């Protein structure tokens, strides 16, 4: 890993862009918006065939043994095309959780399957408005989970989940096998349906302990997921910003290109600035994944990425004028995804709090 991508990392980035460029289909994505419970299986097949779920899985477990920087590179490419399935980053989070906290049996059982894309990993930590609930309503007892996690991203199709659940000794991080009939999924209608948000009702779902200090373990995984997601957000921001820039150059008003108006120029320059800050934050966090201050870099990356993607998609619609608000213009794909990614793993208020606590401790 490096702050500047090395040759192989640059190759990964280019290869991802090349592959996804040909696979991207706005009409298909928009079709997914209008139904609940479907995701872009074609997109996911590409991920699997390209070995992307294996990136951060150790080589011994059938993975590529790469790290968060490479995960981020792929996520960024997927973000550019508003990827049609949520499992790449959530699967990474599950792999990391198993790799860091699981026993040998768990690692042997699940990591190769995750790496091969045979098992789709998802993350079910949040409850209600709390990304890391101090007293989860979902309980873990005798190897079984009971209770409901609401609006779990990917919940409609995940096979394996990391779950923050209450035990007699406080919240623990556990690994839940979702394949059986003990788990009921209630798909939610959302403004970004291919994320497969679902309420997950556990009624004796088999699970195993990953970490007894569940909050701390979950926080570690959430930070990793946040950095991977930040890359995805940056990719989305870059793509929607590129659309806005191109449109401003091509479209004329009052006899000159929109891009000649200072208000448009400055808006785009501000967008560029936010995106560069977000990208640099994300790369920096990924590069420093083993640093004692990783948590603050992760929070900074998350905050900057959320602001950049929200702003770039909001402003792109503004640059496009009336056209920007149409179903046809595709910009709303980014508008939706920007917000979905902004709330799925904790809003910026949560991450601001996390960051301030980190900084306070250092004072």
């Amino acid at each position: 890993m490096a702050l500047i991508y090395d040759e192989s990392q640059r190759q990964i980035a280019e290869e991802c862009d090349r592959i996804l460029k040909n696979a991207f289909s706005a009409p298909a994505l928009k079709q997914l918006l209008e139904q609940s419970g479907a995701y872009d299986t074609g997109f996911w097949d590409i991920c699997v065939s390209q070995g992307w779920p294996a990136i951060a899985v150790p080589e011994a477990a059938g993975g590529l043994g790469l790290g968060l920087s490479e995960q981020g590179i792929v996520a960024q490419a997927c973000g550019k095309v508003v990827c049609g399935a949520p499992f790449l980053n959530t699967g990474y989070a599950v792999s990391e959780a198993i790799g860091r906290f699981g026993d040998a049996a768990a690692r042997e059982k699940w990591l190769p399957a995750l790496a091969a894309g045979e098992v789709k990993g998802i993350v079910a930590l949040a409850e209600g408005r709390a990304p890391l609930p101090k007293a989860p309503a979902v309980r873990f007892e005798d190897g079984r989970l009971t209770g409901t996690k609401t609006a779990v991203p990917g919940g409609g199709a995940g096979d394996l989940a990391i779950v923050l659940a209450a035990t007699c000794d406080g919240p623990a991080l556990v690994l839940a096998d979702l394949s059986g009939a003990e788990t009921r999924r209630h798909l939610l209608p959302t403004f970004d349906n291919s994320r497969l948000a679902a309420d997950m009702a556990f009624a004796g779902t088999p699970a195993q302990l990953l970490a007894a200090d569940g909050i701390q373990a979950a926080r570690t995984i959430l930070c990793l997921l946040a950095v991977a997601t930040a890359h995805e957000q940056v990719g989305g921001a870059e793509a929607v910003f590129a659309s806005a820039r191109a449109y401003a150059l091509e479209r004329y008003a009052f006899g000159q290109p929109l891009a000649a108006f200072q208000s448009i120029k400055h808006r785009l320059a501000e967008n560029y600035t936010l995106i560069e800050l977000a990208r640099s934050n994300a790369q920096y966090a990924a590069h420093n994944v083993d640093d004692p201050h990783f948590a603050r870099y992760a929070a900074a990356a998350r905050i900057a990425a959320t602001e950049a993607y929200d702003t770039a998609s909001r402003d792109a619609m503004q640059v496009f004028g009336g056209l920007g608000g149409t179903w046809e213009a595709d910009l709303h794909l980014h508008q939706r995804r920007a917000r979905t990614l902004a709330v799925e793993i904790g809003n910026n208020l949560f991450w601001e709090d996390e960051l301030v606590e980190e900084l306070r401790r250092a004072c």
Partner: protein
Amino acid sequence: MRAETAIQQYRETARRWLEAHAATHGAPARRGLTPEQDLALGRAWMALKYDAGYSGINWPREHGGQGLGALEKLAFEEEEMKFGFPTDYFAVSLGMPVPIILRYLTGDWVLERARAALRGEEIWCQLFSEPSGGSDLAGLRLRATQDQATGDWRLDGQKLWTSYAQYCDYGILVARHDPTLLKHQGLTYFWVDMRAPGTTVRPIKLADGSDHVNEVFFDNVLVPDSQRLGPVGGGFKVALETLVIERHHASDPAGFGPALNLFVREAAAADVDGVPLLEDGRVRERIARNYALQNGLRAIQARNQLMLGLGMEPGPEGAVNKLVSARARQRLSEFVLDLRGAAGVTWEPSGRLDDWVRSWISAPTGRQAGGSDEMLLNTIAERILGLPQDHRPDKGVPFNQIPK
């Protein structure tokens, strides 16, 4: 003071009347209706208003109106707005097209149109915007070609963003009759029959799933010269005249999004891991700043209405309403999604005004309709503050030589 009291009484009476019909024609009655059913309810509502003397409140009596002032109209609209009556379909129709034809035409035919429009039986649309640019009215390209023999016209081209065109009977339209003239000089103004052969309406689906704005295509559509309003080449002037007819509307300081007290109520009822949302300074800041903004807009509106009532011309500061309220609505709606946590993504498309997700998803359109932020800022800068116009390379250049 006397005028103020009279208005207050008018408002009270109107409110009582509106309240009496809210259950049958207001928001509750509209839940679950198909668009066609909703339109039908709207027509019924317009007829009811007509019969009760609440149509064309500030129109002259000889045009079928009530002969009252802008103040009575504003008071009624403000009250009507609160109940969610199905009035959207008729707002443009009665706001600009019908008044302008009443100004340019005389006789039974036009009076009959006015009556039908007031009763909701007929709807008029305004065909100004084009794909070439919503902000640049005079940049339109739709061609009007005159038959030298008959003097009649043929229209060819496309209009865009025409609200409710799919339901409209007639429209007003500006076309370019001569592209070799300067931009503003080559325009001519007509009214058209939306059912004339060669006219095609195609709804545009918006990001929020709604489709009440349209593209309208004109393919060799015959328009008799008698449907021309104003002289050949006078189209821009008539268009500007049209746009200033409806100077005083009731506006909504919430930017036509959900009311702020809904936000306060939602935040007051919620917590994050036991910490009440309303205790969070970030939530408080949003509430307070939005309240201050909306209160400022209400104050401007109240003052302007008072001035109207006293026969004074309201100040220009009303222009800030749409700029700040639409932007603020967008940010506040975004923030609501944040506060809802992961479940903030939950949504089923609806047309409901109290739906924060709809408010957020349609906000970009809200920031364009009636002028983009950039246009509004330019208007404030140039018209109110007297700052110079932007550089305009299209000035003094024949239309067909302007860079596109």
